[in-house]
C-alpha cells in the first residue's frame, strides 16, 4: 500500500532542511484546491515561517490544470523559485511532467491511482495515498466529497512536514469566518489523511517545518486588497468598473472594506457601479472627478484599451481620476490569468495625440496600500488622471508584509476655488480662467459644479480651448496649452514617489527595475554577492521618470533593466527620456507569463556579464 515496495533514496546522510523549501501543488481548476492551498499558506504563516503563495492558474472555471506554489523561507525570501523540492501531484494529466520537474531528492505526494503512471524516477520519494478509499471512510455528505478531497494532501503534508493539526483547524475556522460546520467537515478529512500517513508512510526526505518568529507582527494579503484598502483610506467615493481578470478582486476589496466608511445608519460614502463596459466605467469616473468626486476604476489591458479615449480627454481637459491597471499578459486576450509588465508604455502614453499619463508602479503590498490613497491626492493636485500600474502577481497572490502605515499626509484636494476663494482670486488677478496658470507650475485653478458664484461656471471640452475654456482653434492657444501641460508633467516629476535606490556599494553594475520583480532581484543580488559580484539597485516608482534615474545610469559602467515583458518597455522609456550616453544600458526581459525567479535573473545577468 505505502511506499515500501519502491526504491527510495538513501536519506540518512542528508541534513534536515528546515523552513527553507518550496511546494508545487498540481490540481485541476475548480476542484476546491484554493482552500487547501490557502490553509497550508496560512498555517505556515501562523507558525511564524516567512511564506508566500502564488497561484499559477488557467483561464477556466473547471477542469484545466492549475498549479499553486508555496515557498517557505527562513531567510524571508518570497520570490517564486524556478524549482520546487516537493510536488503534490493531484492532477493525472500533468503528473508525469510535474514529477519530471523535481530535483534529485525531491518529494512527490500523490494518490495511489495517479502513482501507477508516474513512478518513473528512483531519485525521489513517492508518498502515495489511497485517496478514494479514504474519502469513502469519511462522514462527509457525498455532495461535498469532491470539494474536500484536496484536504487529503493537507493532512499528508501536515503529518510529513510537521504542521500541528490543531493549527490547521484554527486556520480552517478562520477561512470559514468562524463557521464550525464547514471547518469541521474539512478537518475530518485532514485528520483522516494525517493519521493514515502516520500509520502507513515511511518518511524518507529531509524536509520539515519548525515554528519560528519570522512573521510576528506581519500580515498576509493580496495586492488588490491592499490597494482597495488604500483607496478606502484615500477617500474614494465613486467607483465604476467592469469585471475583468485580474482586476475584479480589487473592486471586491473595496466592497469588502466599504463598511469602514459607512455612517451610523449604514449609508455609503462610496458609490460603486458595475458599468456596462470599460468605456462607461471610464466615463463615470471622469464625470465624477470633474464634479469633485474622488473616483476610481480598476481594470486590465483590454479594459485600458477601451478607456484610451477617455484617458486622453481627461488628460487634456485636466480632470482627476484614478485608474488601476492590474496588468495581465497581452496583446489581445493574451494569457488572461498570467502576470506581465507589458502595459507600461501603452498606459503611459494612453490617448491619441501628445499625452503622457502619470503612472505609479507599486512593487509590494505596502506600496499598493500607499498608492491606493496617495493616487487621489496626486490626481487632484495635478488635475490629471493617475494610473496605478500593478500586475496579476501582486494583485491576486498572497504576499507577506509589514503592516501598513497610516497616511502621513492629510487629504489634498488641489487647487479648487469655492465661491469665496474665487472672489479673492478675481480680486488678485482681475479675472479667473479655468486654464490660467498664475503659479507658473502648469497647474490652474478649478471650480466645481454647484459653486454659488456667477463666474464659477465654465464649459469643459476635449476640443481646443483657450485659458478661459472657450472653444479655440487658434494655433497659439493650442501650443500654449500643450506647453503648459508639459510643464505640469515636469512639476509632477518632483511630486511623485521617488525611486528606491540602493547604491551603497562601489559596484560597476547597476540594476533598474519596476514593480513586482524586486523580491526575485533581491535574492539574485544576494547570490551574486556570494559570487563576489557587487550590484547597485534602483526601482522606479512612478512615470514620468525621476531625474535620479539618469544619475544612477551615469554612475554605473553597466546597467541592466530587468522587466517582465518582451520588448524592454522601461528600457525604451529610459532611452527616450535620457538619450545621451546610454549604450551601457541593456534590458533583461522575460515575459513568460510567470512571476520572475531569482534563478533566471542570476543566470541571465551572469551570462550577460560573461
Amino acid at each position: 500500500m505505502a511506499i515500501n515496495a519502491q526504491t527510495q533514496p538513501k536519506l540518512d546522510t542528508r541534513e534536515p532542511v528546515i523552513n527553507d523549501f518550496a511546494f508545487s501543488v498540481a490540481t485541476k481548476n475548480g476542484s476546491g484546491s484554493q482552500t487547501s492551498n490557502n490553509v497550508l499558506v496560512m498555517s505556515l504563516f501562523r507558525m511564524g515561517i516567512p511564506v508566500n503563495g502564488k497561484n499559477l492558474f488557467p483561464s477556466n472555471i473547471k477542469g484545466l490544470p492549475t498549479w499553486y506554489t508555496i515557498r517557505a523561507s527562513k531567510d524571508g525570501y518570497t520570490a517564486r523559485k524556478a524549482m520546487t523540492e516537493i510536488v503534490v501531484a493531484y492532477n493525472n494529466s500533468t503528473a508525469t511532467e510535474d514529477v519530471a520537474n523535481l530535483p534529485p531528492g525531491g518529494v512527490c505526494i500523490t494518490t495511489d491511482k495517479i502513482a501507477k503512471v508516474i513512478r518513473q524516477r528512483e531519485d525521489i520519494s513517492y508518498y502515495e495515498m489511497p485517496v478514494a478509499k479514504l474519502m469513502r471512510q469519511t462522514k462527509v455528505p457525498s455532495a461535498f466529497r469532491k470539494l474536500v478531497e484536496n484536504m487529503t494532501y493537507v493532512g499528508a503534508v501536515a503529518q510529513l512536514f510537521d504542521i500541528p493539526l490543531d493549527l490547521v483547524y484554527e486556520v480552517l475556522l478562520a477561512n470559514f469566518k468562524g463557521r464550525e460546520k464547514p471547518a469541521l467537515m474539512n478537518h475530518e478529512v485532514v485528520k483522516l489523511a494525517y493519521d493514515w500517513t502516520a500509520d502507513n508512510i515511511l518518511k524518507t526526505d529531509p524536509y520539515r517545518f519548525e515554528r519560528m518568529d519570522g512573521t510576528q507582527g506581519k500580515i498576509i494579503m493580496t495586492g488588490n486588497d491592499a490597494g482597495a484598502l488604500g483607496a478606502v483610506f484615500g477617500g474614494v467615493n465613486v467607483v465604476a468598473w467592469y469585471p475583468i481578470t485580474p482586476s475584479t478582486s480589487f473592486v471586491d476589496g473595496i466592497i469588502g472594506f466599504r463598511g469602514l466608511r459607512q455612517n451610523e445608519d449604514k449609508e455609503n460614502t462610496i458609490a460603486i457601479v458595475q458599468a456596462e463596459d470599460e468605456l462607461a466605467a471610464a466615463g463615470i469616473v471622469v464625470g465624477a472627478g470633474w464634479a469633485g468626486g474622488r473616483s476610481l476604476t480598476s481594470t486590465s489591458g483590454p479594459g485600458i484599451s477601451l478607456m484610451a479615449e477617455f484617458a486622453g480627454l481627461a488628460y487634456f481637459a485636466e480632470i482627476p481620476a484614478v485608474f488601476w491597471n492590474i496588468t495581465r499578459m497581452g496583446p489581445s486576450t493574451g494569457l488572461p490569468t498570467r502576470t506581465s509588465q507589458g502595459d507600461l508604455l501603452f498606459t503611459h502614453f494612453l490617448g491619441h495625440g501628445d499625452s503622457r499619463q502619470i503612472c505609479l508602479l507599486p512593487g509590494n503590498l505596502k506600496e499598493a496600500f500607499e498608492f491606493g490613497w496617495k493616487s487621489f491626492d496626486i490626481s487632484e493636485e495635478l488635475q490629471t488622471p493617475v494610473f496605478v500600474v500593478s500586475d496579476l502577481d501582486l494583485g491576486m497572490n498572497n504576499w507577506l508584509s509589514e503592516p501598513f502605515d497610516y497616511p502621513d499626509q492629510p487629504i489634498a484636494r488641489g487647487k479648487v476655488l469655492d465661491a469665496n476663494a474665487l472672489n479673492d482670486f478675481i480680486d488678485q488677478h482681475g479675472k479667473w480662467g479655468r486654464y490660467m496658470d498664475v503659479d507658473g507650475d502648469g497647474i490652474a485653478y478649478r471650480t466645481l459644479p454647484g459653486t454659488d458664484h456667477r463666474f464659477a461656471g465654465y464649459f469643459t471640452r476635449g476640443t481646443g480651448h483657450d485659458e478661459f475654456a472657450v472653444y479655440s482653434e487658434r494655433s497659439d492657444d493650442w501650443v500654449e496649452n500643450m506647453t503648459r501641460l508639459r510643464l505640469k508633467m515636469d512639476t509632477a516629476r518632483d511630486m511623485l514617489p521617488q525611486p528606491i535606490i540602493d547604491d551603497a556599494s562601489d559596484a560597476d553594475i547597476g540594476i533598474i527595475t519596476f514593480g513586482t520583480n524586486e523580491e526575485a532581484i533581491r535574492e539574485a543580488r544576494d547570490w551574486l554577492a556570494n559570487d563576489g559580484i557587487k550590484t547597485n539597485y534602483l526601482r522606479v516608482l512612478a512615470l514620468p521618470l525621476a531625474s535620479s534615474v539618469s544619475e544612477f545610469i551615469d554612475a554605473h559602467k553597466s546597467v541592466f533593466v530587468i522587466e517582465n515583458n518582451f520588448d524592454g518597455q522601461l528600457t525604451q522609456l529610459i532611452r527616450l527620456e535620457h538619450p545621451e550616453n546610454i549604450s551601457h544600458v541593456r534590458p533583461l526581459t522575460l515575459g513568460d507569463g510567470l512571476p520572475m525567479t531569482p534563478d533566471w535573473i542570476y543566470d541571465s545577468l551572469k551570462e550577460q556579464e560573461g
Partner: protein
Amino acid sequence: MPPRANHLGLARNKYKGRPSTLCPGCGHDSISNQIISMAWELGLEQHKIIKMSGIGCSSKTPAYFLGGSHGFNALHGRMPSVATGALLANKELACIAVSGDGDTGSIGMGQFKHVIRRNVPFVYIIENNGVYGLTKGQFSATADEGQFLKYYGTNHMPPIDLALEAVIAGCTFVARSFSGDAKQVQALLQAAVRHPGTSVLDIISPCVTFNNAESSTKSYPYGKDHEIPLHEIQILAPDYVDAKEEITIDDYEEGDIIDVEMHDGSFIRLKKLDNDHDPRNRRMAMEVLERSMREQIFSTGLLYYEEPRPTLADTEELVDKPLAMLEDRDLRPPKQALDSVMRSLMAS
C-alpha cells in the same frame, strides 16, 4: 422699460450662453432657446445645473445656453456615463443633457439604454435630425427607410425609434416633440426637469443644410404639415395645485383631461385631442410608437409616464451629503480602523 425679471430678479438674457455657431435656422437653436426660457420661467439657479453632451452638432449646444452653469462636452456617445459620474459625485445637481441621433442611436446606444436602466435623474434631450451634420451628411440610424440623400444615395435600413427604445429600456418619462413646436417643447421641458428619474425627450430638429427636403420626415416642411400632437400640454406647478380644481376646463368635457401627478406635487395636464392616448399606459405608448413608425405618423407629446423608480443614488444608499462635499473625516477612517484591519491579518 427694464426687461421682465423672473422670481430671482433675473432677466431672460442672464440665462443665455455664448452665440451659436450652428447653421442659421438649425432646429437645435430653437431647442436651446426653449431651454433658456424654461430655466428663466422656472427661476432655476444656474449654479445648481450641469449641462452635459456628447459629440456632434447637437452636443455643441450646451455652450449656447445657461452660461452660468458648468458644462461638459464629453465624448461621442459617452455623455450618459459622464453624467452618471457627475451626478453620483454630487446628487444635488440638476442635469440637462443634450445628445443627437448619431450620438445616441449609433455610437451611444449602449450607454443610452444603461443610463435609463440605472435611472440616473436627468433630462436627456435627443436633437434628432436623421443625419450626421459635422461629417457632411451621412444617414443616421433614425433615418427613414428608403430615404434618398444627395451624397449617400438611398437608405435601405429601417430606422431605430429612440423613444420606443427608451420605453423598452424602462424609462419613466418619454416624450417626442418637434423643434418647430416651441410651445410643446417648452411644456415638456418644464415637466421633464421636475421628474426625479431619467426623462427622455426625442425632439425632431431639422438639419437645414443636409436633411431639410420636403420628402424627409425630419424636415421643417414635413414637421409643420404632419405633426399630430397627442394632447395639449399644460404644466401646473405645485403652488397651483390647490387651485387645480378651479382652473377652468374651458370647452373640454370631464374625461377629456388627464392630470398626471408628478413627484414634486405638480401636474402635467393633458387635454385630449383626436385620440385616446393615456401616457400612463405602457402598452398604449408602445402601440402609438409602433403605429407611428409603421404608418409614418408624426405623433408628438408625452408618450409615457410612470411614477419614478428609485434613482441610482437611492439604490446606492448614499449619505445625504453630496459625495463631492464630504469632509476629510468622512473620507478617511481613523488610524484605529487601519490598525484593527492590520491586526486581523496578523499571524497572532
